[in-house]
């Protein structure tokens, strides 16, 4: 996904392929067109690159804190992966977590619904206050927590069941049935912008859908249980540019009703969809630290830390 995304001005990071490296402001070479739908004018500020929806318009400086993470440390065995991370997740806003590979952003995301519990020998310190309770507390019921905080994964992971049964999966856990079940399934598919494409084949296998459709199915599946918070772990990284655009539009729409935390490799995606951004970095001396957090526009245009500026401008990472 990184290939066609143009980093704003400055020079291109070393990770970019040679063919796309010389991106001028005026004439992007024709090879760059592969990312057409996502790409907008070069000179525009990142936030303005989205066709129509400017996440800055949805920025609510007074948004309430939905999850308040304080002094989080996380360990894989003896190896520390997150160090003293504190940030608020704001209600009905999209919070993007960016940073180079291995910086701990996905690990952080997975602490929020205790997904790391599945990995043996891990340890969490600190607290994340969600509705007055500490998520990391031993007494937290993870089953209930995960019904409140849903998750969409990097690779689409539909169950080998019909489209309908996939969406109904979480609802059936909660013993929803009959007419209500059908209504919520339909509404979830509508909300995930998938209904028109699948309404005539709800009983066929979900594995027959395209990658982008499968990912929207997974979003619909997560929405069906009406979570308060939706965690997304690089939800578009395995998708082509058009499917990515659809997912991004969907995130923007969903942020009206859901609190969303999205981990992304793709800085332009963070700029396009999020109101708040957290920048993670892992270095020898500080493993998995949150370097900077703030409104996305601030991070991308007036970052206070040099590391952040270097990263968002493509000087490394």
């Amino acid at each position: 996904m990184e290939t066609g995304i143009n980093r704003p001005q400055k020079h291109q990071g070393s990770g970019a392929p040679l063919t796309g490296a010389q991106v001028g402001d005026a004439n992007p070479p024709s090879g760059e067109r592969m990312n057409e739908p996502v790409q907008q004018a070069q000179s525009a500020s990142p936030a303005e690159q989205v066709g129509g929806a400017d996440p800055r318009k949805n920025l609510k400086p007074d948004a309430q804190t939905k999850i308040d993470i304080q002094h989080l440390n996380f360990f894989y065995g003896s190896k520390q992966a997150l160090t003293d991370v504190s940030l608020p997740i704001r209600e009905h806003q999209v919070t993007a977590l960016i940073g180079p590979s291995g910086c701990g952003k996905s690990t952080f995301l997975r602490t929020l619904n205790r997904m790391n519990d599945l990995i043996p020998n891990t340890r969490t310190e600190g607290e994340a206050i969600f509705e007055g309770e500490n998520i990391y507390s031993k007494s937290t019921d993870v089953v209930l927590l995960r019904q409140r905080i849903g998750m969409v994964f990097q690779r689409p992971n539909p169950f080998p069941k019909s489209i309908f049964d996939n969406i109904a999966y979480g609802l059936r856990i909660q013993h929803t049935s009959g007419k209500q079940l059908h209504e919520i399934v339909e509404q979830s598919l509508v909300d995930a912008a998938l209904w028109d494409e699948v309404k005539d084949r709800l009983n066929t296998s979900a594995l027959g859908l395209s990658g982008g459709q499968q990912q929207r199915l997974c979003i619909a599946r997560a929405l069906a249980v009406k979570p308060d918070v939706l965690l997304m772990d690089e939800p578009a990284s395995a998708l082509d540019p058009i499917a990515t655009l659809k997912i991004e539009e969907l995130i923007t729409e969903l942020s009206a009703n859901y609190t969303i935390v999205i981990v992304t490799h793709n800085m332009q995606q963070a700029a396009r969809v999020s109101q708040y951004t957290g920048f993670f970095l892992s270095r020898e001396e500080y493993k998995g630290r949150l370097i900077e957090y703030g409104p996305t526009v601030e991070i991308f245009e007036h970052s206070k830390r040099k590391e952040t500026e270097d990263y968002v401008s493509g000087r490394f990472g």
Partner: protein
Amino acid sequence: MSMQQMTQPASSQAGIERAQQQAQVVRRLHTNNTIAIGVLWAITVIVTVLFIAIIVYLLIQGAPALLSLGFYGTGATGIAAELFNTFYILILTEVILFPISLGAAIYLFEYAHQGPLVTIIHFAAETLAGVPSIVLGLFGFAAFAVYGGFGISRLAGALTLLCLNFPQALRLFEAALESVPGDLREGSLALGASKWHAIRTVVLPSALPGLVTGLILTAGKITGEAAALLFTMGLFNPANVFTLNPLIASDTLTTRLYFLKGPGAGSSSLSFSQESILAAGIAAVLILILLIINISARSIGRLIERRLTAA
């Protein structure tokens, strides 16, 4: 493609030499490859022909018995009782084996902390898998027939077969669970499923092709087992052989074959040639049953897989 086309135009003497050297190396690579293909092909053909020859030979030998009506009856030259017992013991063993080994596989793979205890259990199971079946037969006699109080009986035989097949079933079922992508488990748990719910609704259905294959492969092994049953199930049938009573002694196709050409040779009312025809017939029936079991293992597993993933 000739070497001239592939190398630089050889303008100098050094260039020509280099090209010749390269040609030699490439020629040797091709020669070695051809030799390897030839050897592997020959081995494959020999082994395949041997297998097919064995099967065809046994079927031809067994044809006279297979074509005679008395073979399917209950008389001295009939195998009706043995056929019944073979399937009876197969089903009885699987009914005990399947839930036990699947349960153990689920616990070991999905729940247990992957530490030394799991390693020890796997080591023990693999050791058990290496124990000769005749030894397990003796163990079964002591443990189930004598101490267990079941006597020489179908139940003692089935329990012995359970010990014999448990390691393999465990390994096959664990492999089936392992083949289910972790993504699916996470997807289910992230929707607020408990671990057991995720296993029941996502993991087990996805593992079904592997589970069925495991079930049928152990079925083949049970059908073909003789040594473990010699001491535990006996070699003779009582009058009430066609009942479901698990506490009676009885023989199976394999133990009947053993008795016929082994300790019982010449002792029955049958002539030597009759005995030979009967033995060949039993061997042919066993081959046919195993063929059917193995073919259905493949096709049923594939069928379920296709149904689960069908678009």
